[in-house]
């Protein structure tokens, strides 16, 4: 009787602390306990490998295929609306070049018969290569009754 309960105790103790067992029973045999990576580790590891190699490949492709064209800023009007202080012209600024432009100044003018009636400007901190940024210009007059032009004025290298 006591022997059986003793064995049960031993087994339950073993269940609670499986790490003790290998050390006490396996003695100096530490090497076989060092299992290879588990299946989950392999799965996640492969995902990591794909992500890293994909990122490196993409970046190398970017570096190699870029012809180093300077920033080429193009501006589109997306919307004109009435706001509390007048009128708002929403813009989408696109950099078609290969280099990032920083401090991009955009000036918008309302003209009639060749003379500038009103002008506004904004600055975009960064317009990355092949990317767009959004902003808007406020005017007190209705842009739709004038000729509206928006042009990039200048930029800095980051």
């Amino acid at each position: 009787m006591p022997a059986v309960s003793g064995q049960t105790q031993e087994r339950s103790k073993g269940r609670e602390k499986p790490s003790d067992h290998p050390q006490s029973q396996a003695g100096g045999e530490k090497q076989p306990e060092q299992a290879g990576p588990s299946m989950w580790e392999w799965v996640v590891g492969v995902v990591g490998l794909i992500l890293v190699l994909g990122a490196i490949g993409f970046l190398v492709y970017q570096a190699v295929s870029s012809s180093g064209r300077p920033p080429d800023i193009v501006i589109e009007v997306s919307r004109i609306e009435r706001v509390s202080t007048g009128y708002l012209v929403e813009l989408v600024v696109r950099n078609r070049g290969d280099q990032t432009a920083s401090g991009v100044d955009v000036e918008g003018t309302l003209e009639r018969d060749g003379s500038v009636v009103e002008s506004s400007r904004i600055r975009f901190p960064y317009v990355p290569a092949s990317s767009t940024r959004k902003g808007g210009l406020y005017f007190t007059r209705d842009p739709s009754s004038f000729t509206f032009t928006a042009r990039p004025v200048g930029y800095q290298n980051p």
Partner: protein
Amino acid sequence: MADGTTHGRSILKDRTDERGFLVGFARAYGGAIIFVLPLTMTMEMWWLGFYMDPSKLALFLAASIPLLTGLAYFSGFKRTPRLLNAVVDGFVSLAVGFSTCAALLLLVGIIDFGMSLDEVVGKIALQAVPGAIGASLARSQLGGSAKKPGQSHSGQRETDPSDYFSELFIMTIGALFLAFNVAPTQEMVVIAFKISNWHVVILVTLTVLLMHAFVYTVEFKGQSSIPPHTPFWSVFVRYTVAGYAVALLVSVYVLWTFGRFAGLAPDQALQVVFVLGFPAGLGAAAARLII
């Protein structure tokens, strides 16, 4: 009897291994978030993501693979670390790093659907590496009591502690991490331009002294690989000075990667390196203490 317990033990080992892995995995995400969040909230890091030279970023990512493998290898908790385990661990950390950064950057709206792929990849990739470092450290350091076979009672690194190279490696990681946190911001460059040459001399001296103080603290805590009664000069040259050299090299690499040397005169460039060398050196020294 013996067969019964062996069989029971191996099944349990698999189950605890799997559960242990998932727990460690969750812990890795925690570590990644803590390590990368300050960088994620720094706009200079976002900008660097898209304006830095893509070939330099690719190089950095490629270098991160042996870096994270080494980190898993040297700070691991297995008695006889295997290279294969360390490599897989490294990639697991990178997977955690990438996914954490992607999630955080989406959360704060810094990346969005509709942004160009150039921008998105650059922003995530740059921050994925510090995230991966955090993930790797969390799995090995914050492990607590977990049932890892072969772990010693005091939970120290199981690699042969008198391995000088592993000490240098750990210092590299510490230097890299702090340099990464400080280098992107404008303030660092402003400091370098403002201070006089005397400031730099004092800064260098202070860095080395503080690093040496850290080295002695490690000795007192008994985790050092330096045998007791080693002469002061031996310790100073081999650990403190070597560590500072490592920190300076790391600083140069990080500054180069971020393109901060562009258009700088050599003496100005050196000044920036020494200024960055201060946090990098302290990071290196602290890493020996912590890892």
